[in-house]
């Protein structure tokens, strides 16, 4: 046995902070849920939750808002992870919200179900009476997210009032809310993209195969590499399908996530690639390209 030098490195202090936050959620809320997308950030959250409550099981379920446009690799991975860890998984489908007439499918070249998720998410929160939703958003991802709290209160409509946020002082997290409100919790707020990847490497965490370099049928549009899947992604006849060695740096829907050219087939190569990258992570997110303030607008409406 040795001294636990938990504060000797950057990643350890972030891990300690995230575990502290997850324990506060379990202690302060009656019905928390972990929003799981199958992406690297939410997979990291699951790992942190396993550590936070050991030897007990994670005391809250996972919920996936399935757009129906996910990469099949992500869904397979999700189901395996849940089974291995013996977790409870709730799935709610954007398709159902469309069928019920609550939202309308977008059309055209840039059609995506990304925005539609919000309605399905808010309905599920109401259905299960969740009072805290844990998410993997990070402040370094995007300018509006840089202003997000760790415990972020949302009103009955799931809205984020960015100019009227609760101050967060020291380590103290105020989880008291009024009826109808809920809290979005971001335990890895202070992690950077590189921190997440370094942690995945150090902890030897399994992630979906699409994060590693693979050959894929793609086409080029607006300088980005789009997945060629005619079921999901609209493609003009002149947009020629080619095969490239690519990987995904961030994983959302097929219709809103662009690939990057890469030959990084192992985690250490991925970490190396991120370290040397001159393009930001969300540079390959088609959903953020809609306008300078795209994320802020979506957050006000109740997006993750």
């Amino acid at each position, binding site marked *: *046995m*040795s*001294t*636990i030098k*938990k*504060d*000797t*490195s*950057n990643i350890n*202090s*972030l*891990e*300690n*902070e995230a*575990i*502290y936050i997850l*324990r*506060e959620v*379990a*202690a302060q809320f009656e019905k928390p849920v972990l929003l799981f997308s199958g992406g690297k950030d939410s997979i990291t959250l699951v790992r942190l939750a*396993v*550590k*936070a*409550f*050991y*030897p*007990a*099981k994670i005391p809250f379920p996972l919920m996936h808002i399935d757009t129906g446009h996910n990469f099949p690799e992500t869904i397979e991975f999700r189901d395996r992870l849940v089974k291995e860890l013996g977790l409870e998984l709730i799935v709610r489908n954007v398709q159902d919200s469309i069928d019920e007439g609550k939202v309308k499918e977008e059309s055209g070249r840039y059609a995506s179900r990304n925005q539609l998720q919000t309605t399905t998410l808010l309905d599920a929160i109401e259905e299960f009476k969740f009072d805290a939703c844990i998410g993997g958003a990070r*402040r*370094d991802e*995007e*300018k*509006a*997210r*840089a*202003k997000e709290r760790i415990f972020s209160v949302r009103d009955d409509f799931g809205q984020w009032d*960015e*100019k009227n*946020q*609760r*101050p*967060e*002082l*020291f*380590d*103290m997290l*105020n989880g*008291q*809310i*009024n009826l109808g409100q809920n809290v979005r919790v971001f335990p890895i707020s*202070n992690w*950077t993209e590189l921190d997440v990847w370094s942690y995945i490497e150090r902890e030897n965490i399994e992630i979906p195969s699409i994060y590693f370099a693979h050959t894929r049928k793609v086409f080029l549009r607006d300088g980005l590499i789009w997945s060629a899947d005619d079921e999901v992604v609209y493609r003009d006849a002149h947009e020629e399908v080619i095969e490239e060695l690519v990987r995904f740096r961030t994983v959302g829907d097929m219709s809103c996530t662009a690939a990057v050219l890469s030959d990084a087939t192992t985690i250490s190569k991925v970490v190396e690639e991120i370290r040397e*990258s*001159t*393009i*930001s992570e969300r*540079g390959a997110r088609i959903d953020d390209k809609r306008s*300078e*303030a795209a994320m*802020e607008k979506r957050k006000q409406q109740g997006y993750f």
Partner: protein
Amino acid sequence: MEVIKIATAGSVDDGKSTLIGRILYDTKSLTTDKLEAIEKTSKQRGYDYLDFSLATDGLVAEREQGITIDVAHIYFSTAKKSYIIADTPGHVEYTRNMVTGASTSQASIILIDARKGVIEQTNRHFFINNLLRIKDVVVAINKMDLVDYSEEIYNKIKADFSELMSKRDYQDQKITFIPVSALKGDNVVNKSNNMPWYKGQALLEHFEQLDKADIFNMGTPRFPVQYVIRPKTEEFHDFRGYAGKVYGGELSVGDDILVLPSKTRSKIKEIYFYDQKYQTASRRSSVTITLENDINVSRGDMIVKEGDLPTIDKEFTANVCWMDSTQLVPGAKYVVQHGVNKVLAKVDRINHKIHPDYSGIEKDVTGLGVNDIASVTFKLNKPIFYDQFKNHRTNGSFILIDTQSNNTVGAGFIQ
């Protein structure tokens, strides 16, 4: 190395966002796409320079008005250290954001416009930095390019600021003066050739050479119990673990401890971090502790070393920073959240208001408005276990929660 968080304070137009943008640019932390966005917008607005403030101001209203509204967090790292900069707005009405940003920071930068010198708001920024006992403060005298890099002006501002320093409560705070131009990049990341008279370090050099003892506060170990872990599985049938974060010092297996408030004695049996057992838990580690005896411990209780007790009392006096538009008045009830512990509190009396510009105190106060700082005495419905803020930053601070709105309406530092 732990992540170092640096709070920034400055008035409107002192160039705070520009300074942060400059740090990001010169440390090559801005990615190509972000840089292109800055270039594009700068050009659209007809500037003949790159407006680095665009790198941090994130909300639509901020970009429209060219001001910072809410605390933003900016991340970058060098080969030596990882940094988080809390970009806090400098307007008079935003004291609460400054207190918030400073509460989680170990170092800070106070910006002064070289053309304006020490102004009323500078007093305020310094007061808050000192009240929150930030160990390392850099006074960055900015826009030196607009005063011909004058040593005389720099010395005048330094002398004016030193007058403030004599009034401070926390005398051990280390203060360093650095003349900079955020716009031109002088003495920010790289040493400037324009000010040969300045022999000190550039801003980032200063932070790079700080070590742990320079920035982190130590104290006696305190272990507030966050959550009780009872797996009730076959393998861990009788396991009863107390999860929490260690503050102030170390705890080791075999330590004689007391559980507060009951003052029940026990010994630390095991220290877990995930599935590994350790001999010692260092400060700020999130561990799970088991005890020798089977005693009743719940959330909000505190494990401390025997002979190292905090004050256990149903009454305390604290400097309160009020952050809400409603008034704090004697007799009003609030929830005091002290670490993970919550108790109901009543305002017994407001002793006096403290003017954060060092112009003295005000007695006979009937209520506190937003951004007021005052000495307030509270009575509690049950005792809490606290240390004075000057001895223990974590166990000496608390927040006030409104019982109706549930909002965080104030922060306090126990005297």
